[in-house]
């Protein structure tokens, strides 16, 4: 076991052990055991990086190409550090956040399962393993969102996220398999080296659409963003971990991974950039109107993910144009922002959890004036919120500044021209404006104003609960003041995304007066004005009809699918045997008719035998009897007519030189008739239940159709008998080999004895079945019959 494999398997081992530990040991909180794991994993990753053991293979199922090949380049390392370190902080926070009476064993099992899956996603070089871990994150996320499974809303939110992300997961499988088909390799970095083969392949667009859908669903991009706000029903540590720092960035990671391959096409750059910008605008616009603190943060997360997508789209220009280092800055900004966003958003989620914990509510309308009551929380909140808004000197400002300057640079490219640049800039700048508004509004509404209208006695949270967010805030401040400690990580991550060396990066606070800075200042000014004038313009949100939202579409779609299924069930499946038979027979007629229509009718050559008079008489007899059965009004008459047909068939066997058949047929027909007559006494009067003309017509049409197609097929088949019968062998050897003269009997018991063995078995089973049917009944019924006697 190499270092990387050990590190990834640690969380899975922990997930198995924690429930047992928790079961036998209720005194020590299981979170402390869980805390060891991410710390150990982080140390292992650092060791692997230092010892340069960043490429490790482990064969699992080589014959289908599923191997656990791990490869840690810059972007994987960045994600691994985020996952493990934020994981450790979140676990520490949850130890003090969750109630002792919760099902803690479950919680830490799901959390560690998720952690392992996420590490697998960012480390896997093998695409099948990537897909496997990807789905594991979906499943563990589903379990975590529905952690409070007694609440209806948690279940709904979990179901929604599951449906959307698993849809995306299946798309990912499709995309990856398409790529495997094109390149004939299961390894991601080999795919990157074959990008010129992929771009020329006719399946390129298919793969691209699949991968894009997978990334957009996982990273909650427009219009798939609807699951993220509903996932806020999860416990707050889960929201902080999954829905801010790690899982929702898996889509961003995927886009980054495939940038060197797909960014060779302009449509990829267009789609990623515009979907990201649209998401950025739409989610930040909607974040302002949320009444719930976690709702604000959820929409904020969506919009920040949109920002990362836009940056990756622009970074794709660096792949598209050779030797254009101008666009490399966008990728650096993106990786930097991944880091920054994880730090301030995780902190904010934890702070909201603390506020919820201390006041008992997350409702913005009830909360106000917490600044005197919770000063430490306020300090942490204002730093992270201002970082989110992009205010200097915090780290959010730096990545926002890099973002805006990249946006102004795209006019240099020949892909974006005229109107599209204007549209993109408008979306992005208005989105950033609203980002500023909701961040400031969040602080203003929660911490300022009169004292809160809540029932609890509010006071500062305990230190241990505050520790994790404070660590995060410290990271925000430090990376804001000294951003260049991260440049090594960002450079290697950008190299991994672009597959090109981006040169030496230097992040500075002051770029001089440029369009980006002017825009930022304008955003601050207008945003501040709008925050204080909020009550004059919030009616703009009333323009949104509730049935124009994507949530409404999703709900409608869900109910439509359910009602359609219910309808199909009721009309077709639960409709009784006759409808089923009609469907089966119609399918038979239609398929045969289509098949026959393929080519002109050709009956071939019939080798006919002569017709004799008494055979014709028999035919007429059978026809009459058949007609009589159909029109019969009484039971006894139809049974007698049936035996008439049976005996006529026996006679046919006589005419056609089949003595054994005739014998058997006559015997069996006699017994059958006797059986019918025995049951006849017990069966009701023959009611035909054919009241309506429509009913009879349907039956008639279908039966005539079936008869016709069978007849035509039989006629054609009879005219096209190409091979001689194998009967010659039997005829030649019946006496020499089998010492019998009756060929039919010899075939039955010698040449093809197995048929006969199992035919006897069938008869035996039927006998046993009949016996049990008659003998085994309810006790009540038997008693009832005895009392009648």
């Amino acid at each position, binding site marked *: 076991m190499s270092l990387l494999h050990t590190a990834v398997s640690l969380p899975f081992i922990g997930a198995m052990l924690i429930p047992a530990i928790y079961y036998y040991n209720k005194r020590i909180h299981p979170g402390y055991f869980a805390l060891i794991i991410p710390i150990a994993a982080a140390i292992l990753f650092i060791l692997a990086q230092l010892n340069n053991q960043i490429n490790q293979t482990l064969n699992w199922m080589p014959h289908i190409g599923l191997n656990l090949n791990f490869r840690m380049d810059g972007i994987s390392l960045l994600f691994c550090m985020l996952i493990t370190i934020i994981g450790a902080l979140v676990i520490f926070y949850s130890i003090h956040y969750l109630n002792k009476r919760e099902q803690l064993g479950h919680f830490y099992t799901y959390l560690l399962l998720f952690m392992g899956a996420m590490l697998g996603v960012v480390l896997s070089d093998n695409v099948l393993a990537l897909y496997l871990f990807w789905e594991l994150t979906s499943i563990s996320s589903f379990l975590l969102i529905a952690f409070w499974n007694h609440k209806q809303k948690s279940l709904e939110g979990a179901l929604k996220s599951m449906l959307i992300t698993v849809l995306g997961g299946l798309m990912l499988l499709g995309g990856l398999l398409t790529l495997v088909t094109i390149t004939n390799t299961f390894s991601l970095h080999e795919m990157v080296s074959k990008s010129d083969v992929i771009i020329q392949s006719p399946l390129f667009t298919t793969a691209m659409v699949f991968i894009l859908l997978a990334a957009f669903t996982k990273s909650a991009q427009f219009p798939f963003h609807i699951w993220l706000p509903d996932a806020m029903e999860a416990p707050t540590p889960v929201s902080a971990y999954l829905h801010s720092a790690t899982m929702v960035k898996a889509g961003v990671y995927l886009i980054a991974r495939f940038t060197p391959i797909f960014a060779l096409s302009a449509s990829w750059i267009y789609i990623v950039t515009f979907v990201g910008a649209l998401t950025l605008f739409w989610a930040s616009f909607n974040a302002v109107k949320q009444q719930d603190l976690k709702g604000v943060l959820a929409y904020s997360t969506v919009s920040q993910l949109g920002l990362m997508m836009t940056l990756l789209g622009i970074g794709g220009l660096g792949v598209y144009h050779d030797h254009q280092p101008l666009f490399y800055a966008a990728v650096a900004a993106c990786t930097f922002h991944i880091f920054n966003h994880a730090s301030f958003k995780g902190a904010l989620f934890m702070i909201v959890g603390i506020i919820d914990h201390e006041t008992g509510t997350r409702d913005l309308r009830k909360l106000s004036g917490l600044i005197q009551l919770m000063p430490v929380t306020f300090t942490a909140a204002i730093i992270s919120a201002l970082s989110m808004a992009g205010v200097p000197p915090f780290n959010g400002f730096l990545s926002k500044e890099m973002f805006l300057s990249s946006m102004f640079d795209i006019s240099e490219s020949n892909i974006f021209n005229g109107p599209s640049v204007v549209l993109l800039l408008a979306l992005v700048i208005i989105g950033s404006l609203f980002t500023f508004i909701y961040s400031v509004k969040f602080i203003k509404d929660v911490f300022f104003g009169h004292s809160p209208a809540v029932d609890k006695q509010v006071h500062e949270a305990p230190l241990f609960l505050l520790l994790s967010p404070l660590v995060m805030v410290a990271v925000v401040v430090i990376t804001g003041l000294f951003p260049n400690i991260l440049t090594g990580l960002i450079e290697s991550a950008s190299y991994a995304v672009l597959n090109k060396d981006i040169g030496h990066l230097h992040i500075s606070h002051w770029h001089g007066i440029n369009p980006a800075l002017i825009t930022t200042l304008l955003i601050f000014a207008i945003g501040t004005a709008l925050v204080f004038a909020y009550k004059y313009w919030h009616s703009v949100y009333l323009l949104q009809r509730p049935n124009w939202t994507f949530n409404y579409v999703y709900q409608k779609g869900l109910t439509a699918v359910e009602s359609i299924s219910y309808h199909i069930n009721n009309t077709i499946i639960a409709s009784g045997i006759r409808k089923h038979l009609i469907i089966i027979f119609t399918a038979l007629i239609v398929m045969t008719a289509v098949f026959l229509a393929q080519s002109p009718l050709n009956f071939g050559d019939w080798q006919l035998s002569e017709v004799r008079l008494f055979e014709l008489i028999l035919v007429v007899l*059978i026809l009459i009897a058949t007609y009589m059965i159909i029109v019969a009004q009484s039971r006894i008459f139809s049974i007698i007519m049936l035996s008439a047909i049976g005996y006529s068939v026996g006679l046919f066997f006589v005419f056609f*030189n089949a003595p054994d058949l005739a014998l058997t*047929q006559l015997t069996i027909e006699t017994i059958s008739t006797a059986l019918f007559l025995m049951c006849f006494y017990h069966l009701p009067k023959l009611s035909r239940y054919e009241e309506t003309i429509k009913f009879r017509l349907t039956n008639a049409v279908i039966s005539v159709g079936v008869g016709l197609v069978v*007849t035509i097929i039989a006629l054609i088949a009879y005219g096209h008998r190409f091979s001689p019968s194998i009967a010659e062998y039997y005829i030649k050897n019946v006496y020499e080999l089998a010492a019998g003269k009756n060929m039919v009997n010899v075939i039955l018991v010698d040449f093809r004895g197995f048929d006969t063995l199992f035919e006897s078995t069938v008869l035996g089973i039927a006998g046993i079945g009949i016996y049990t049917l008659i003998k085994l009944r309810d006790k009540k019924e038997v008693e009832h019959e005895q009392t009648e006697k």
Partner: protein
Amino acid sequence: MEVIMIILSGILISASVYLMLSRSLLRIIIGTSVLTHAVNLLLLTMGGLKQGAIPIYDEHLKRYVDPIPQALILTAIVISFAVTAFFLVLAFRSYKELGTDNMSMMKGVPDDE
């Protein structure tokens, strides 16, 4: 002769399908029996009719009727008899239990929620 037999089998199949689509259990069973006869005749016909002697070996004869379809039909007759017998007893028992032989009445509980 073969064409006549094939058409006869087709007519029998039509009749059996018509019977099987009815709502009365007894008529459905009769329909399956008619179908058996139709299929047996069809099997025999497709092997060719009256192309030789009865398939009982004799040194002086050269041409016999094809024995293989006959063996197949013999098996089919017995199996269909077993099934018909079982089906009949099933019908008798279900009538005893349910008090109806109308197939459209024999549905599960409409909403078992």
